């Protein structure tokens, strides 16, 4: 009797799980379904939810008729990879020293990182704009990579610091006794043990850069330098002919890489969220 009740409960939870997932995913599903509809069907009333016929025309329209799309796409990729290449080694190195070594100034650095995490990005926007204007970095990829690196470093250092601290100290001691210097100990002995921490930093930085809007909108005024998060909305504003069909295909394409990375690294995202106690 009892077991039966338990099973019923499980089925109920399962159904709720499916419903909640569907409700939350419904806007994305709607966009994806629309992207496969014929343009006439998109504007027919009453609206259809399931496409009467699946067509690729909207995707072809993006690939052939929307030269801005690949520009936005590759800018986003370049900026994301550039930021990762800077954030990962710097947060690993700093996280190691802060997590495993004692030295004067350590407390001050940690205090600064925590203080920065509490300050909204908006505060940094105006001075960074002025700096980039002086250095001619507006409308360049590097003009986004540098501020994004700075903004993502504090969380990255926090996550890596926690990851290094969890390694038992015997490993480090034996490496030292074997004659490894500090750099070797860090890079060859300790870092392979914090891969999950690095994965967490990767997914966090990836998502943060991919979706960043405030800085990208302010610093990148020229189409040639814009990222997807800024470019697609601006395209929509610029031309009225920007139809829902092309739009839904472009949105679907722009969500593909990030969704893939996210699904692969989801576990570490949750871990990093708890470790860094999260900053938006």
């Amino acid at each position, binding site marked *: 009797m009892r077991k039966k009740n338990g099973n019923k409960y499980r089925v109920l*939870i*399962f159904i709720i*799980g499916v419903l*909640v*997932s569907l409700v*939350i*995913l419904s*806007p*994305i599903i*709607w966009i994806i379904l629309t992207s496969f509809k014929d343009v006439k069907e998109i504007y027919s009333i009453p609206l259809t939810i399931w496409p009467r016929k699946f067509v690729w025309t909207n995707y072809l329209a993006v690939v052939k008729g929307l030269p801005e799309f690949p520009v936005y796409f590759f800018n986003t990729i370049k900026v994301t990879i550039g930021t990762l290449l800077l954030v990962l080694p*710097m947060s690993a190195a*700093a996280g190691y*020293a*802060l997590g495993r*070594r*004692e*030295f004067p*100034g*350590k407390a001050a*650095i940690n205090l600064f*990182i925590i203080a*920065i995490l*509490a*300050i*909204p*990005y*908006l*505060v*940094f*926007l*105006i*001075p*960074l*704009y*002025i700096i980039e204007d002086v250095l001619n970095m507006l409308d360049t990829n590097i003009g986004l990579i*540098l501020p994004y690196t*700075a903004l993502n*470093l*504090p969380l990255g250092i926090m996550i890596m610091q926690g990851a290094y601290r969890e390694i038992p100290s015997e490993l480090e001691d034996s490496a030292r006794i074997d004659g490894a210097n*500090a750099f070797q100990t860090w890079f060859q002995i300790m870092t392979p043990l914090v891969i999950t921490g690095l994965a967490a930093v990767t997914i966090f930085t990836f998502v943060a850069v991919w*979706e*960043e*809007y*405030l800085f990208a*909108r302010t610093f990148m005024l020229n189409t040639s330098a814009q990222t*997807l*998060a800024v470019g697609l*909305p601006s395209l*929509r504003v610029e031309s009225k002919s920007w139809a*829902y069909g092309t*739009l839904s295909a472009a*949105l679907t394409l*722009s*969500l593909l890489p990030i969704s893939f990375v*996210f699904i692969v690294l*989801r576990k570490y995202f*949750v871990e990093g*969220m708890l470790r860094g106690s*999260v*900053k938006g």
Partner: protein
Amino acid sequence: MVKRETSKPVVNKIGNVYGFTMKKRDTRKRKHIMVSWLFVLPAVLFMAAFLLYPLLSALRISFSEYNFVYSEKPIFNGINNYIQLFQDPHFIVSFKNTIYYTLVFFPLFMFVSLCLALLLNSKVRGNSVFQTAILLPIVVPLSLAGIMFTWIFSQDFGILNHLLANVFHLPQLQHFWLGDIKTAMNSLIAVGLWKYIGFGIILFLSGLKAISSDIYEAAKVDGVNAWQKLFYVTLPNLKGSFLLVGIWGIIQAIKVYDQVVVMTNGGPGTATSVLYLYAWKNAFSFFNMGKGEAIAFFTAVLAIIISVIFNLILRPEKG
């Protein structure tokens, strides 16, 4: 005494291993400090150049008259920018709108994510699939979510109005969601909730998993019912998660910006003008950097004060 006898040979042993004597200890220590700093130096320099310097510069700008187009340099004008803020009706409206957004967003965010986390906190088939699905909106840039929802909320070809009229047979609920002062802000809040609810659920779920099963066993022995279990066992043990989710949710609400720009840009009228948006407009549409930065610091202080209050209320007891 015994301690000293045993510890002495150990010191010697280590001394032999490292091959240094007492005299070399100072240089060794100095080297240790130097190497430590080499590890942190790239990150520290980077943060100094792109965070610390801008922060100080921002503070100076907020106390200056500085028009980016006309002024050569920021001219110190004390707390003038801050005084002007409170005489500016548009600022007051933006402040009120941000508070409204927070007051609606925050309780819904907490309540819905807690309820869903409680429901999903069981070993059910497909749980990891549900979690991925629920978290997926996190990767949708808020600005792109803004495009999606502008369309979903649109009057003629919007799926929401279509569903209300043709599927649920409630045509009287059809609405021009973003064009009406009464519903524009709530529509933006819905987008924010959609995007962020997954964060709340996952954080609460990890909090729930961390509660030891011993406590539940003990409660079972005491014969508590399901509601008592929830209110006297589960929720008090979730304080840490409440703190985490709460502060996070409040900060997300105060810094609302992306979907506002894409969906309404503050309109209709000033109905959805929020602090971030008004700061941006002051700095980059009117080039009044001083005033823009003053709003930015006002927002920062607001976020910090609310976080601290929340922290004081919910701080987990020590020990």
